[in-house]
């Protein structure tokens, strides 16, 4: 189990680093195998920061992230590599995730070089083919090509295949479909949902509520670095209690009803919010917590 306990991340800003910017404040949740957890928030909510901390690309400023009860901040060298065997991620921009001067399947070669140096040529080829099949890609279409010769959807799927080459338990999907076209988005999204049936725990980070609602079992609504509402997806979406959640749901453009002109202004009219105390989460019903507002 992957657990976050009172995790926070603070950046130093301003001249001589005197100011403080809290990107993540006192966030706690659990990610279990076979479960899709959506982390929903607008820009500046800290959702990507949380994803990167889980992937050990950033250090936490406070609190701890534990994998099977081991604090990941202490992992070094080979232990860190072991962690990456179990936890992987994919990011938002497919074209930025590939080194443009090399072929796209080099990402597989890197995995082989670092994790499976002793596996034979033929066996490796078979494993790659299996992984590509699992993400519905035809090897002939994608192997031996440069990133600019492939589409965004293919590139993202390749990255999922890369993760599947390892024996991962948890997968962090950071806005992985927001740069894809609408007609390919849903296919990659379905792919993630299929991964769940393989027993993977998936952290689905997004700003799009309809996507979160579509595939996740649990939802966390994040605002300015802290959790305002979390719980089973049906309860959070069906019976939203926090005013921020309700505002978000009211702003989503639907296709079968028009916006209510409730005169609600935009979420933030200014830029950075001053530091506010993190409100406590209150259990209002089984599987549904809301921050006191």
């Amino acid at each position, binding site marked *: 189990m992957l657990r976050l306990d009172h995790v926070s991340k603070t950046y130093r800003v301003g001249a001589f680093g005197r100011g403080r910017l809290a990107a993540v404040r006192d966030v706690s949740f659990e990610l279990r195998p076979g479960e899709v957890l959506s982390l929903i928030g607008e820009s500046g909510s800290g959702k990507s920061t949380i994803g990167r901390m889980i992937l050990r690309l950033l250090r936490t400023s406070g609190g701890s992230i534990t994998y099977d009860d081991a604090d990941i901040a202490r992992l070094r060298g080979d232990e860190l590599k072991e962690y990456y065997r179990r936890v992987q991620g994919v990011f938002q921009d497919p074209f930025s995730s590939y080194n443009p*001067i090399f072929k796209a399947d080099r990402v597989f070669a890197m995995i082989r070089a670092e994790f499976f140096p002793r596996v034979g040529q033929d066996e490796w080829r078979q494993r790659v083919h299996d992984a590509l099949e699992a993400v519905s890609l035809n090897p002939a279409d994608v192997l031996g090509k*440069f990133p600019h010769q492939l589409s965004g959807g293919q590139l993202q799927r390749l990255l999922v295949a890369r993760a599947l080459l390892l024996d991962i338990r948890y997968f962090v999907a950071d806005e992985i479909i927001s740069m894809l076209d609408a007609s390919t988005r849903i296919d990659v999204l379905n792919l993630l949902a299929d991964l769940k049936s393989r027993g993977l725990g998936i952290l689905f980070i997004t700003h799009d509520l309809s996507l979160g609602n579509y595939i996740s079992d649990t939802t966390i609504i994040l605002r300015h670095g802290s959790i305002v509402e979390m719980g089973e997806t049906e309860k959070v979406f069906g019976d939203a209690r926090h005013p921020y959640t309700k505002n978000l749901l009211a702003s989503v453009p639907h296709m079968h009803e028009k916006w209510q002109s409730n005169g609600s202004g935009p979420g933030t009219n200014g830029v950075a919010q001053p530091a506010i105390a993190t409100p406590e989460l209150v259990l209002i019903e089984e599987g549904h917590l809301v921050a006191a507002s």
Partner: protein
Amino acid sequence: MKGLRESLHFARRNRKLVFGASVTGAMLLFALVGPLFARHGPLVFVPDMAVAPTTHDGYWFGTTLQGQDVYAQFVNGLRLAFIVGAVGGGIAAGIGMLVGFTAGYRSGVVDEVLNMLTNVVLVIPTFALLLVIAAYLQVRGVVPESVFIGITSWPWAARALRSQTFTLVSRDFVDLARLSGRSSWKIIFREIAPNMASYLVMMFILLFGGAILIAATLDFIGLGPSNTISLGMMMQLSVQNAALQLHLWWWFLPPGLAITAIVGSLYVMNVGLDEVFNPKLRET
């Protein structure tokens, strides 16, 4: 790699690159082959003094006021110029890369320390330093001169590489390499540096040309190597001996033209390379 083939295609057609490379190549050829045709050593005194260029006795470039073979000095100086460029430019490039990559990749405290180091070296008055060193060393050769140039001209290269590394480090493929368990040095040299290959090539060319120019300047004010004759020293001696007034044009014109030609063509080559590597600058 498709990119390489495409680059070569444009490289062949780019007039600046072809021109610059041809001139530099010709000078290099001259430097390698020329000394074979010198009848005398560069420092040897011959009986004929201040003779204009003539085919007699191999004085193709004439002789100096004291009676040294200008051609011999010229081809010797040409060789030295390329050595200074390679060694001086190479050292500067090496240090620049080390400092620049590390500062750009690591950021934080390491970056600040390296920045401070870069700034300090940048503002050291090189002439004053060289004068002090010259006062202590008995004999100064070309290699020490090159090394000195190398260790004082790397700061701007380090700065430039640092900012380039910054932009590449923020790209997701670097994160992906980290997620694949790659170590930092491997990432720098296998992911980041290859992406900057064109930039590194151009930077080296600029450092090469810059080293030659700095050496010529140092030589011209008398701080050059003490055991041989370089192009800059030829110019210094010719001015000291009033070659201009005495109309001994064959003494200062060849070295001056040679330095201008080499450094100039290197810079032109660089502009051409920029167009080859940067698709947006191509005249399509």
